[in-house]
């Protein structure tokens, strides 16, 4: 049985790393769902504060969403830019 080349090994490990990094995108989605559920509860309890609640939630969720994109950026860099290939 032939051994694998260093390039193939690095490419394979990069793909595994990209997959692991993309998992980071799951967390913010679940968090956003919880936040929206609690906001709906708040609006139901105090309908006059709807504008304030939605405004705060939009700003909070815009910031929370970017934490998932960090993982996506790492995955894209590992897959397309292949920075580890330069180490060979």
């Amino acid at each position, binding site marked *: 049985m032939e051994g694998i080349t260093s390039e193939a090994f690095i490419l394979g490990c990069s793909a595994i790393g990209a997959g692991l990094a993309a998992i980071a995108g799951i967390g913010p989605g679940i968090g956003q769902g919880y936040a929206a559920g609690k906001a*709906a509860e708040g609006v139901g309890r105090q309908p006059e504060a709807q504008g304030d609640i939605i405004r705060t939630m939009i700003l909070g969720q815009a910031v929370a969403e970017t934490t998932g994109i960090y993982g996506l950026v790492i995955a894209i860099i590992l897959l397309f830019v292949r920075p580890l290939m330069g180490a060979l």
Partner: protein
Amino acid sequence: MSLVGNTQYKVTKRVVIFALLIIGILFLFFPNPKTYVNGLIFGTIINLLNFRLMSLTIKKSVKMPQSKIMPYIIANYFARYIIYGIVLGIAAVADYISLTTTILGVFMVKIIILSDTFYDIILRSSKNRKKSKEGR
């Protein structure tokens, strides 16, 4: 304009101004800034459109029954996540778009929202300084 619409307008306006400022800096300091500018415009536009999509999703979700909110929000979040993935993939593959500035453009709304707090603190402290000078 409503409170939510006003906030959206304020954030969008600041993002556009900040992006134009960065484009100006790119034109000043880089000999051939076209790829960087393309990337920044591409990332910023997608980020603003996703911000708008998110606010529409949230406005709709608040009026939904409790059991349907979480799946709806998560589905919409993954739709936006896939859009970001496609955008970053295109920026990585295409040689006429810079990946670095596309990433900067994608984070533009976050930068503006976080810097808004510091901007307000600086504005408030400068107003207080003016008031204390007038008081003397």
